[in-house]
């Protein structure tokens, strides 16, 4: 079987790149290890700052997949370099010989239980941002039962040398503010706190969302890290933190604590990097040959990147990189002859 391009990873970036490649006249093979397309987008509820339903975005992305061969529940098991092409073998027994491979492997969420002091997996009422999105999507979760006091802990496993992740996950600040607003809408009488290091509201409309959270929703922003979480005799959480603006420690009893798990590189990046001989950075994400002038190019002919494969990104950035990578691949294949 001969196809033009293999796209590894069926998240937003992989889907968008595949569609654009198809529109440019190629026949991409989109490989996804899960049983559905969409990656994290498929499990998210709404996207900041406009609160657009994630399912609407995903629906529009996957509405027209004609001309794209999608392999679900499939992984890449080997990649061999020939003279001017690659032979990619898949776990479904098929293979493809291509001149271009696009890596859109995205990210995984930091396992919050690694920050043992926050008690995820130990204390009943500690959940993650992903758990809360699942609840917003209608999944039942007895941990979210009429909470009166709710806390959000920013930067869980991000900007954290001790956790082995120095990078900022970029979207957690805005996600925390978004989720704080959303949960306040669900429980208007609840008191909601956000524990932050500093708020990175860099995108258009983000700062407005942050101000709205304070003015219209009464979200209390407390600058300082949570030091430890425990449980009192009634099962309520006791959250200790440093309020660095007041210059004193605080202790607050809560009914729900949401940990903003950051983005980390998927473990599978290492295996893929060995197959392609494209070394990932110290943080496990792939490193473009030139992160400023063209973040979609690798240092290896015919291998391209898009989306969070090269580090944490917002959804618009991810989609834009998918499109950019498609154009870059098109130029490359025209140059070398597809």
């Amino acid at each position, binding site marked *: 079987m001969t196809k033009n391009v293999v796209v590894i990873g069926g998240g937003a970036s992989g889907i968008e790149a595949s569609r654009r490649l198809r529109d440019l006249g190629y026949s991409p093979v989109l490989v996804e290890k899960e049983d559905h397309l969409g990656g994290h987008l498929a499990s998210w509820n709404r996207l900041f700052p406009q609160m657009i339903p994630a399912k609407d975005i995903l629906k529009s992305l996957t509405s027209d997949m004609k001309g794209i061969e999608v392999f679900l529940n499939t992984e890449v098991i080997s990649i061999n370099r020939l003279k001017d092409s690659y032979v990619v073998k898949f776990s479904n027994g098929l293979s493809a010989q291509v001149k271009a491979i696009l890596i859109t492997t995205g990210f995984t969420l930091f396992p919050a239980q690694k920050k043992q*002091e926050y008690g995820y997996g*130990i204390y*009943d009422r500690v959940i993650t941002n992903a758990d809360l999105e699942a609840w917003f999507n209608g999944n039942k979760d007895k941990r979210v039962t009429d909470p009166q006091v709710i806390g959000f802990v920013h930067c869980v496993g991000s900007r954290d040398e001790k956790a082995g992740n120095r990078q900022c996950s970029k979207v957690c600040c805005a996600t925390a503010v978004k989720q704080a607003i959303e949960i306040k809408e669900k429980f208007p009488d609840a008191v909601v706190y956000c524990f932050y290091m500093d708020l990175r509201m860099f995108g258009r409309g983000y700062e407005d969302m942050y101000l709205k959270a304070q003015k219209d929703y009464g979200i209390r922003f407390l600058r300082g890290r949570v030091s430890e979480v*425990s449980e*009192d*005799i009634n*099962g309520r959480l006791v959250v200790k933190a440093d309020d660095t603006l007041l210059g004193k420690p605080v202790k607050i009893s809560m009914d729900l604590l949401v940990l903003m798990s950051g983005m980390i590189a998927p473990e599978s990046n290492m295996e893929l990097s060995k197959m392609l001989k494209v070394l990932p950075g110290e943080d496990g994400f792939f490193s473009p040959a030139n992160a400023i002038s063209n973040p979609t190019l690798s240092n290896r002919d015919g291998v391209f990147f898009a989306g969070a494969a090269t580090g944490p990104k917002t959804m618009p950035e991810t989609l834009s990189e998918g499109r950019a990578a498609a154009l870059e691949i098109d130029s490359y294949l025209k140059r070398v002859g597809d």
Partner: protein
Amino acid sequence: MIFQGKQKIWSEYQKDIPEDHYFYVRSCIRQSFFPASEKTFLDIVKGELGKDFFETPHHTTCGGIAYHAEAVPQETMMTIIARQFALMTENGYENYVCSCITSFGLYTEVMEDWREFPELEAKIRENLWKATKREFKVPKYLAHASDIIYKFRNEIAERAKFRLVNHKTGAPLKVVEHIGCHYSKMFPSKGVGGAEYPYVLAGMIESWGGEVIDYPERRHCCGFGFRQYLVKANRGYSMSNTYKKFESMEPFEPDMIITNCPGCPYFLDRWQYVIAEQTGKTYGKDGYGIPVFTYEEVAGLVLGYDPWDLGLQTHQVAVEPLLDKMGVPYKPEEKYKGVGGKVIVPPEFPMNIKCC
């Protein structure tokens, strides 16, 4: 509480503790605070379990309190520790076990420093040679004495005469476990169970029939905290830490507290008297306090040792309510008798905390 979550963490922080042949070093302050605990430890590991534990009278302080009080520089402390290692080496041992948590933390810190900075170790070797003409090997294995009791907790349970169970109702006793800060907070991988949910004492409690209480201020300092107490002007801060812990554990109605540090049992025990004198408040039932024990004392009680041979009469908070719950027999008239039946004058009894 999700117990399986804790079990997962415990499984990730297990130490490979050697079976036998240890060079044992005592604590400088435990022998004053709880004088029978170290003897009980040796009675258990040598007498009950038949293990080889060697100690030498040439051993000195590790210098920990002076170091943490910034009374001696790091280099001096390291040279003192190098001398202890030389004693171990000269006596043919490779496994080092210390009674004191501060020492354990310090030994761990020194060994890690030397691993990171070999030139520092070389300098200390030179210091020791110039001062004493001694040489040393870094221990192959470093344990705290509570690691050893933890390792043999099930063997102790098999020999148990009494369990951490209310002998009248059969209900497990509710036990607060308090870990010394220097056990694993600095180096989580060096402690059984890690830093956040240490298992070293919880494992003993489970094996001996008790139920561990996880209360909000479980991780908080006992109140010793070196400079909190060593500087006299800070002692109110020391007591307020202890007070915070007792207020936090009170709703859980603990029957007892087990510790593995020299300072913790002392402060948790003595400050209960001061709190009672200052506020009139006591935390046990019927005007008593919550009895506080070292893990060796508890192991001794489980094995059926006489409570007064374990030195429990040196505690501020009366231990009798706990002995009654466990069904441990004792003779009240023997409480203040010393070696050979010599009568020791009973202490003056406090106003607000009930003693037997």
